[in-house]
């Protein structure tokens, strides 16, 4: 049941992506309100799919990689829809919707069988830690999208070109502010994600910090975002540099999320012994 719903979700995300892209390249105003509605419908179906999974298994679908991907896409869309409420950034949807579609699609590529949860994960720490960590990640993914938009807009302004597409972009100042807001939200979430992970590790394995690859990469990303935040608050770090750094920071986070476990086997890859 939840798998069928997930398929519907993927289709809706694809439709929403197409609609957002049509909106950018053709000036058709009705599309601008239509696209978020399609995306929201996809989100609702997605929520149902996750909810059913939870009811059936008794744990949130985050333990396996494919489940994690789908959950992550869900958070991403949730974050975007919240931003859309306040900022009406349909153009950001054109980045987020395809991303969500690809992630849900990728979730299928990793099989659909419902695996048994390893005993080491059957604890309340799992939903708390994973949700916080993923929320942080999702917020940074949005910040990544906003930064990308900033750099595109900045580039056009510097090169003194104007196109209809650029007209759809918010002003540089608005994008920079939004980027800052996302950083301010993402950083504490990431901090909490790392803290809960560390406490969980401490309780279960006896040491809070074991220098395993996931901990190291999160630590690096955390430091990185910390430096950006500090720079923004005190040293007037903004605009292009801030956008670039935000994008690099996210590359570290997502790079490890996608590749890390296959390169550096660790307990996060589901190998609990």
């Amino acid at each position, binding site marked *: 049941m939840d798998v069928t719903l997930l398929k519907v979700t993927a289709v809706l995300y694809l439709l929403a992506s197409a609609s957002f892209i049509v909106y950018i390249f053709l*000036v*058709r*105003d009705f599309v601008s309100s239509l696209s978020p509605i399609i995306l929201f419908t996809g989100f609702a179906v997605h929520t149902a799919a996750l909810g059913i999974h939870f009811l059936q298994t008794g744990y949130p679908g985050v333990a396996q990689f494919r489940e994690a991907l789908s959950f992550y896409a869900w958070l991403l869309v949730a974050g975007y829809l919240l931003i859309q409420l306040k900022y009406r950034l349909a153009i950001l949807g054109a980045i987020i919707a395809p991303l969500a579609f690809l992630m849900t699609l990728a979730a299928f590529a990793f099989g659909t069988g419902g695996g048994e949860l390893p005993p080491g994960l059957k604890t309340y720490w799992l939903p708390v830690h994973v949700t916080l960590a993923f929320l942080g990640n999702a917020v940074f993914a949005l910040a990544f999208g906003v930064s990308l938009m900033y750099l595109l*807009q900045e580039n056009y*302004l*510097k090169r*003194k*070109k*104007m*196109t*209809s597409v*650029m*007209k759809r*972009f*918010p*002003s*540089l*100042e*608005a994008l920079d*502010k939004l980027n800052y807001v996302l950083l301010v939200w993402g950083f504490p979430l990431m901090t909490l994600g790392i803290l809960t992970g560390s406490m969980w590790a401490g309780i279960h394995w006896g040491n809070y910090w074991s220098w395993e690859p996931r901990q190291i990469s999160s630590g690096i990303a955390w430091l990185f975002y910390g430096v950006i935040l500090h720079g923004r608050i005190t*040293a*007037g*770090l*903004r*605009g*292009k*540099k801030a956008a670039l750094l935000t994008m690099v920071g996210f590359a570290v986070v997502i790079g490890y999320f996608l590749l890390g476990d296959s390169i550096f086997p660790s307990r996060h890859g589901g190998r609990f012994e």
Partner: protein
Amino acid sequence: MNHRSAPIEVRESVAFDTAYVHEALGRLRTYPSIQESVILSTCNRVEVVAAALNGVSASEEIKAFLAEQRARKNRPSLDDHVYIHHGPEAVRHLFRVAASLDSMVVGEPQILGQLKEYYNAAQAAGTVGTILHRLFHRSFSVAKRVRNETAIASRAVSVSSVAVELAKRIFDRLEDKTVMLIGAGKMGDLMARHLQRSGVHSLMVTNRTFERAVELAGRIHGSPILFEDFPRYLTLADLVIGCTGSPEILVDAATVDKVLRERKQKAMFLIDIGDRRNFDPAINEIDNVYLYNIDDLKGVAEENLQERSNEAEKAEGIVQEEVHNFTRWIDSLEQVPTITALRQRLEEIRQRELERSLGGSLRDLSEKQRAALEDMTTAMMNKILHAPMSHLKLSSNDEDEKTLYIAALKKLFDLER
């Protein structure tokens, strides 16, 4: 007539003041062919839109009306400057005017408001009927469609409006931004005013001759600052307009770099519209600073213009579609009454002749025979009507043909008494 067909003096000579339109519409109504009318008179055009059954005599009457208007102002004939559109062409013209496709500055939004104003005036004068009511309401929605579905209205083409458009892409809002105007040239003055209209409150003005700075600041509600002091105030300025005839560069990259550090990298927009370069071109290399000179602004305006003409094609497509819809409506309006009128006409003749004969030479006919005669004449009439009716209905796909038939029927059977 519009800005292309007639020079300003001629347009002025027939222009109708808003206050005067009511009376003019009243006068126009006294012409026999004109059934409905709206007068539109702006600084770029004078138009009379009328609904009439006979287009040729109506247009003669409108010309006479305009000539009369002109004669009041003692001017000779104006045939050369007037354009006349009939039928679908007239509909298309009005739609293009409403959508600002016929304007001097294509896409400017004022025309729609003016059109509505003059339409309301005509309505108040009681000269708007079913046809013009529908026509004008369609024209308003055509304008809306063109505005929503094409980017024709969103392209700035003057240097000042390009500057404002750019400023809005850099800054979220202009209300909390400060502008510094260096030099008291005409262009800078214009641009500063344009920015103020777009929301800027705070304005500093500086000039080598302080008196001129004070004078200009007084006119545009800015604060004058001494020319020697302006570099110190740069930190406060989000937008800087350089508009002096100075042969040397007034602001160099190092200064901007320093100013930017003091501003904690808050973005700056520098506009160089001086006779020579007022700002060092290297400034554009610095992050968070955007330097545009007059050629850059013109380049953007040019691009906008180009894009506008692409959009104009799209807009013409919309107009075409709507003209088609409207013509269909008009025809359906005309076709039904023509058929009814024709039938009525023949019925009248039949009744009249029947009465005459039955009262005269056929007086002695029996009841049964009378009924047979009645049936026969009715059948004859229907047989005669059958062919023209089916032609009218069959031709409903071909607009021109149908219009032709309707006109012919009206003329041949004298349906327009």
